[in-house]
């Protein structure tokens, strides 16, 4: 099977501080890869390297290679096009000063889509996928600020889906969402993986267990172990620290 993403010996430095210590892993097409680990283990940094949003930070240096469909992401000249291929949902909702409709329509319009009927269809589909349509369908023109925290996060998810990414990176997407809605979004993710590859960074190990086909455990910038989720959550993972983390012995 050809890998969707290939990461080789990836090292990231914030100034003098090394955040990733030479990580190598492959992500398969149409899988959900769960990435777990305590704080400061480099999970978010890994996602930001993949969609090249890490380069907005000053004093950053990146070594190693990341390939998307066999192409080195650093050699891709159209970085905006690359980012449209890789959707990103951040832990806390970052809204645009726009209406609910325009928030979701932002990416398609940025990509050059002008047909109103098509944009309408995208907005409705994405809001439904993010389990938000029923709650906002009658007030699409109101501002994103009028929504609750959980609704704002679902709006962010809808926005990330609006440009139909090949890879969807979810960084603690459920941190501001209630458990019922989280379950609804998880159901959507199980369906979405037929169309895209999903990288799921989560501190909720049970969420990774529920959703991920494979799970990677990171600790202090190192990739400790990556394997089938059933193996990681079994009594016999390869590394003792993996067992300790998923069983709540630390972290």
């Amino acid at each position, binding site marked *: 099977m050809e890998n969707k993403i290939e990461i080789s010996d990836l090292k990231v430095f914030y100034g003098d501080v090394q955040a990733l210590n030479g990580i190598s892993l492959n992500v398969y097409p149409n899988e959900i890869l769960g990435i777990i680990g305590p704080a400061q283990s480099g999970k978010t940094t890994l996602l930001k390297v993949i969609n090249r949003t890490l380069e907005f*930070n*000053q004093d950053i240096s990146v070594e190693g290679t990341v390939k998307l469909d066999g192409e080195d992401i650093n050699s891709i000249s159209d970085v905006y096009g690359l980012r449209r291929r890789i959707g990103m949902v*951040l832990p806390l909702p*970052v*809204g*645009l000063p*726009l209406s609910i409709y325009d928030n979701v329509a932002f990416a398609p319009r*940025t990509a050059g889509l002008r047909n109103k009927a098509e944009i309408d269809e995208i907005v409705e589909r994405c809001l439904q996928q993010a389990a938000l349509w029923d709650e906002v369908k009658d007030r699409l023109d109101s501002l994103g600020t009028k929504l609750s925290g959980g609704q704002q996060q679902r709006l*962010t998810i809808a926005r990330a889906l609006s440009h139909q990414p090949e890879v969807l990176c979810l960084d603690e997407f459920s941190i501001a969402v209630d458990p019922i809605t989280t379950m609804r979004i998880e159901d959507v993710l199980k369906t979405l993986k037929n169309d895209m590859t999903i990288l799921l960074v989560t501190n909720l190990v049970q969420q990774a267990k529920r959703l991920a086909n494979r799970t990677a455990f990171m600790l202090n910038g190192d990739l400790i172990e990556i394997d089938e989720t059933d193996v990681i959550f079994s009594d016999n993972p390869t590394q003792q620290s993996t067992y300790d983390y998923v069983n709540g012995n630390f972290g």
Partner: protein
Amino acid sequence: MNRSDPIFHIIALIILVLVFFLIWNFTNLIPDAKGGNTADRAVQDTLSIIYGHLYKMIPICCVVILLSLAVAFFLEEWLPHKSLQYRIIERIIAILASIPSLIYGLLGIYLLVVPADKVSYYQLTIIVSLLVMPYTIQSTQKAIQGVDISVREAVYALGANRWKVITGHVFPHAFPMISGGILTAISRVLATAALIIVVCDWKIPESNSTSSFGFSSSVVVLLLSALSLSVLSSLVAKNVNHINLNGIV
């Protein structure tokens, strides 16, 4: 502070001194139409020139402010912060912004009083630029730096280009702080204009004034305007955190 920082500070200082000498020599070359630097006559002329040319400052201010914003956005959004150019330009701006407006006022007197009837857009532009640009650039830089990086990341992650991110999201987020900085810079200009008038007023009796609008009234109006703008600026700064940017989620 980085160990290499003092080097950039010294380089910036040397560049500023060189530029200052160039300006100094250039202004000395401007011919005096009256054939001399007779102080009283010059002061008298200067006052009428100041009254007559204050309106010129408005378009100059507008251009200088727009230029300052462009420089600040270029520095923050385009130039890598570790680059040599960024470090030197940043130091130059920091030095110029830290100079008290009184010094610029004295420079203004030199430029306006000595070649009294030759006050050109060029000279006014130098004074207004020195007063407005460093402070506006610095405050705009701080405003841009204050925009949460997650805003940029969120918009870039949707495939937006740099221009769209800056105009559509960074600028609106930073606008309250930017406008506060601009108001403060303009108030510095007005206060300095008042200073020049006061200094000139000491040198000639009121009866010799060529203006129908008295010196004291001018000074009071300028100082009150400066004060009002400063108050407005502090109010804007105080309310930065409370301003809803048309619906930031």
